């Protein structure tokens, strides 16, 4: 049952991602991106990472993409412009490299060379403690320093938004 759901969601998210790239209308592109995000959130749920799933939707689908849409609509980019191919020389090498990369990935997956290490947090353990609690615990013990430095990061970003975008300082 979970495997079926995985395949469906994976297929939908990849399809949406493809549409996102090839869609001419930016509003639709943004909507496809939202669809991809939601599908990924479902994949997280299937991995029993409910916290990440919820945050994925709140942050990406709920906040960032709304701003995306907001800007696109404000600029009213719905006129289908004749997009001319600015990078004609890159097309063929890009396709070629893409095929090479794809085959390489397939070969690696098939060769069973992948030997990732099993982490210490098993699904059973995560579920017994609770997803959110575990993440909170780690943030305030092992990863306290990066967590706190993030505040400087956000502060800098806020300064930047004002510096670069405010009309009159």
């Amino acid at each position, binding site marked *: 049952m979970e495997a079926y759901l995985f395949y469906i969601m994976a297929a939908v998210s990849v399809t949406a991602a493809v549409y996102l790239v090839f869609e001419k209308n930016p*509003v639709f592109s943004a*909507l496809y991106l*939202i669809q991809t995000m939601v599908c990924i*959130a479902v994949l997280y749920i299937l991995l029993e990472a*409910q*916290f990440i*799933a*919820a*945050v994925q*939707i*709140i942050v990406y*689908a*709920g*906040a960032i993409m*709304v*701003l995306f*849409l*907001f800007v696109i*609509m*404000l600029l*009213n980019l*719905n006129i289908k412009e004749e997009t001319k191919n600015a990078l004609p020389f890159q097309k063929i090498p890009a396709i070629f490299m893409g095929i090479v990369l794809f085959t390489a990935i397939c070969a690696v997956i098939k060769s069973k060379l992948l030997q990732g290490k099993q982490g210490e947090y098993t699904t059973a353990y995560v579920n017994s403690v*609770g*997803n*959110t609690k575990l993440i909170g615990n780690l943030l305030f013990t092992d990863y306290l320093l990066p967590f706190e430095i993030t505040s400087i990061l956000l502060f800098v970003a806020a300064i930047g938004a004002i510096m670069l975008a405010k009309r009159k300082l």
Partner: protein
Amino acid sequence: MNKDLLVYIVVASIKIFLVFSAVQIMIISMIWLERKIMAHMQVRLGPMRVGPHGLLQPIADGIKLLFKEDIIPQKANKLLFLLAPVMTLVPALITFAVIPFGDKVKILGHSVNLVITDINVGFLYIFAVSSLGIYGIVMAGWASNNKYSLLGGIRSSAQMISYELPLGLSLIGVVMLTSSLSLVDVVNAQAKLWNIIIQPIGFFVYATSAIAEVNRCPFDLPEAESELVAGYHTEYSSMKFAMFFMAEYANMITVSAIAVTFFLGGWHGPFLPPVVWFMLKLSACLFFFIWIRSTYPRLRYDQLMHFSWKFLLPLSLFNILITGLIMVLKG
């Protein structure tokens, strides 16, 4: 298929059916009640013709909307135009999945939780779902291909993002006190004392931003009829308009249910059965919405934004700080 799973599916379906019908009935009665209450507050009578005291008015309205011509503007983006009302209504309804409306009851030997599902990230689920509600309005505004609609859509996206922050942060205090994100735990923790007493600032911030979040008066700028000709749903007619209408009421019921769950003790209360208490508190919240609407004038747009970013957001952060401090000091 084993028996437990079967029971689970049956029970869940029944609960979903019951909750959804209850919400639908509430929406219909809300439409009538709002008109009646507002009328009496303004010393009018309100609808009187259809049925006793206009009781059948919502049904008449529904029939009228159903039979009206369904207009899709020629230059509108058809797919999004059709999708938008659905996208507004669905998030409002599915939030109810995690709201507990009663204590455990025993039916045919099975202990049944009166909540559709109790998940350990219920709090986050509510926000995840409610943050998706914006898209319906934004899509409606854009797809209509109408300047007023677009302005309404843009306004509402800015407004809802701005108010989502204090809305979320105001509940953090409660979550800190409960130390759980499950709504069932939140309600259980209020058996003795309602959170509104311990978290008055949180409740104030929540109540204010909840009104803004559902685009109700005095924060109803996205559909301000005097400047935007009804904003994002200018071009909508017939059932699609009705869906927006329903979504607005469904949203009101949802945020009221959250308020009841987080601040007003959920289904706890003496003498009466839990479900009745829940409904009573919910009705009180909904009455509050109507009361506010008939009392306050609409804010100006810049006032709205300043109020959120410069007052509510710092206030909610302050609330978290105070809550944390007291929790640490009390040990």
